[in-house]
């Protein structure tokens, strides 16, 4: 079943004009088609200058996160049938826009670098794999599904107000290693994330959970970090 949809898209073409504008496109889409299909059709048939990121087109690479009808989502994972006839699309909030729906994600990725985002274990490795029980692996199961699309951090009011704040994505990354039984850098990682712009800034607003395309309960993970930090006596703030 196909239907006409109006895509109202916030455009920003820096080489044309220093300010942004709204463009409307009317296109016919099948009900099972995705917002990304709509954007591609517009680019192919109506306006070749429309710019957005895309790659895998099935919700695993994280390229096409954008604000669709007021919520951050992946364009490739949002079916038009679940949206009203008027579909309003903006770039992810609170990051500098490069062009149209493409934002500069440097700031977002930099936060990750601050949480020691890699497994640290200086013990000599055993001959075979390190043993990890199924229960222990399950502790990090949800956190490893993160695709770093940026939906969470850019939906967080704390991040809107404080660009220094680590944000849900980086904290989730920290969790992924803090609770991995094979990792040995718990203290140095906690040290880094309990500072002024770290984990205590999370006010359990749950916006990140609402928008996560992988349905990760990010706040739950952040709260677990907070409890671990309290248990270990990391107050931070200095």
């Amino acid at each position, binding site marked *: 079943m196909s239907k006409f949809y109006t895509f109202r898209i916030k455009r920003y*073409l*820096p*080489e*044309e004009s220093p300010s942004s504008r709204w463009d409307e496109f009317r296109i016919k889409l099948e009900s*099972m088609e995705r917002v990304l299909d709509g954007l591609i059709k517009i*680019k*192919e*048939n109506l*306006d*070749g*200058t429309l*710019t*957005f*990121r*895309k*790659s*895998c*087109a*099935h*919700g*695993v*690479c*994280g*390229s096409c996160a954008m604000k669709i009808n007021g919520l951050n989502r992946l364009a490739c*994972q949002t*079916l038009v049938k679940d949206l009203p006839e008027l579909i309003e699309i903006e770039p992810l909030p609170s990051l500098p826009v*490069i*062009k149209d729906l*493409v934002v*500069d*994600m440097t700031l977002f*990725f930099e936060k990750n*670098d601050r949480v020691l*985002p*890699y*497994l*640290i*274990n200086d013990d000599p*490795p055993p*001959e*075979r*794999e*390190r*043993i*990890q*029980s*199924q229960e*222990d*692996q399950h502790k*990090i*199961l949800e956190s*490893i*599904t993160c*695709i*770093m699309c940026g939906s969470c951090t850019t939906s967080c009011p704390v991040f809107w107000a404080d660009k220094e704040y680590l944000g849900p994505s980086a904290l989730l990354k920290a969790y*992924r*290693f803090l609770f*991995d039984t*094979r*990792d040995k850098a718990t203290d140095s990682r906690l040290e880094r994330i309990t500072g002024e712009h770290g984990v205590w800034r999370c006010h359990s607003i749950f916006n990140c959970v609402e928008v996560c395309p992988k349905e990760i309960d990010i706040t739950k993970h952040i709260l677990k970090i907070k409890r671990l930090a309290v248990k270990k006596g990391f107050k931070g703030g200095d």
Partner: protein
Amino acid sequence: MEINKHYFDTVIIGSGLAGCRAAIECINTGSVAVLSKLYPTRSHSTAAQGGIGAALGNEEPDSPEWHTYDTVKGSDFLGDQDAIEIMCYDAIPTIIELEHMGVPFSRTPEGKIAQRRFGGHTRDFGAAPVRRACYSADRTGHAVLFALYEQCQLRGVRFFQEFQVLDIVVENNSVQGIIAVNIKDGSLHVFESKAVIIASGGYGKIFKVTSNAYASTGECLSMLFRQGLPLEDMEFFQFHPTGLYGLGILITEGARGEGGILINGKGERFMERYAPTIKDLAPRDMVSRAILTEIREGRGINGKDYVYLDLRHVDKKILEERLPEITTFSKIYMGIDPSEAPIPVVPTAHYAMGGIPTDIDGRVLKDVDGSVIYGLFAAGECACVSVHGANRLGCNSLLDTVVFGRRAGKTATQMLKDMQKGRVKKDRIDKTFEEIENLRNAKGKESIASIRKDLQTTMMDKCSVFRIEKELKELLVELEDLKTRFKEISLTDRSKTFNTELLEAIELSHMITLSEVVAQSALVRTESRGAHCREDYPNRDDENWLKHTFAFKSDRGITFKYKPVKITRFKPEERKY
């Protein structure tokens, strides 16, 4: 024109599994730059679902020897057995090393790496399916890619994200460096280096229905080909049996490894007829052909062009724990809960067995005699070692990327001290600049989208699972026409900032070149082997065709040379499962 010059000892193109694994090796001895046209963790390795093969024997007895046999047989005896043996024996330490680097594998009750069954992987040389695919739910590629990328960060690898490579400069038999454009602002960058490792992935986007990402367009292969370097075994393109109907989104073979079965319109488990021993877990080429045969003979679901993948009898807990991703895909894109209804599937273009010919150390070959281009390496899907021969087994692709990514990196590292710093000459840069400027200002009458659509459609119709001389010849005529049309393209976006339309034009031009090579190679090989199925030559012809195809660009079009297959232990036999 302002040019930004960089020097790195090693430059790696592509930040997927092969690229990141190579970078980890190279960073020990010199500076490394990794270029990616996406953000590194968006590479298509992240979409690999089912597993990575290694005969760890964690779940049941297994041996690398059986793994070698399965891979050789899976390749329809076209794989080079010395390389296959290296891969299957290296698999074990490589996976253990990945685990030590932090890959969050799923676990057995004893806490070891969990393993599952996969297509074509058997014990005792074909006796019964074996649990060999190490996995992390159905997000194995994602889990491995993140761990490798994170290790690269730890070791200080420089990443240049959203850089599109425009040219790989090979002069005087050695690599000089590469020319790339920063997508963000359109600035031109020249990377001179001692070594270049190409790990740019596949080119499934030449087909209409594919599991591949929009980024999988294969321009690096075409860049080498246009310079007169060969491409090997390009006629072999794998179609994965289970892509979501209409979309081509991959449903992992692990679904069948966990007990899923394929059923046709009559409700029959038809794979019993095609592969009596291992049934639904037969290699992909056979399953894909079986599905399409069922459909052609009118036994699709309701006579339509798809079959069902049935997971209803699989324990719900297994679906939740081991196959959560494909469960979500079915729900989102088809509105189907796999525990309640079967999933409509069709074969989808998935993996290129062919590519840039390399030796077992990842060095790029310039001819069938084994001579190499100095300093140039390739690994992963873009390369052809060849370990996959005519058909790749499931979970051998991730293995290929890490084993040969590592080997290419190691070899590059060892050769570094004897290698000269490359020099990219100004006229080459000027030429590249001119080409991209011409494209950016192209004012023809053809649109990129319409050419691309026609290309993908015709490739799908005439050069996918079943091939026949008449259609391949028609296809080549159409491709000529598309080439002419491409000269007349027009761009609407003339800006320098994040010009994705320009990138699509560049990609399209290379896709046409690659399609031509694929079609020509398919036409030349007058036999059926593995994924290459010629209806006019339905049998395997070992007497004439037990050899690799090397396609070269010449003034007379594409010419071919052949390289014998390395056979060490397993003599070609009839392939039955």
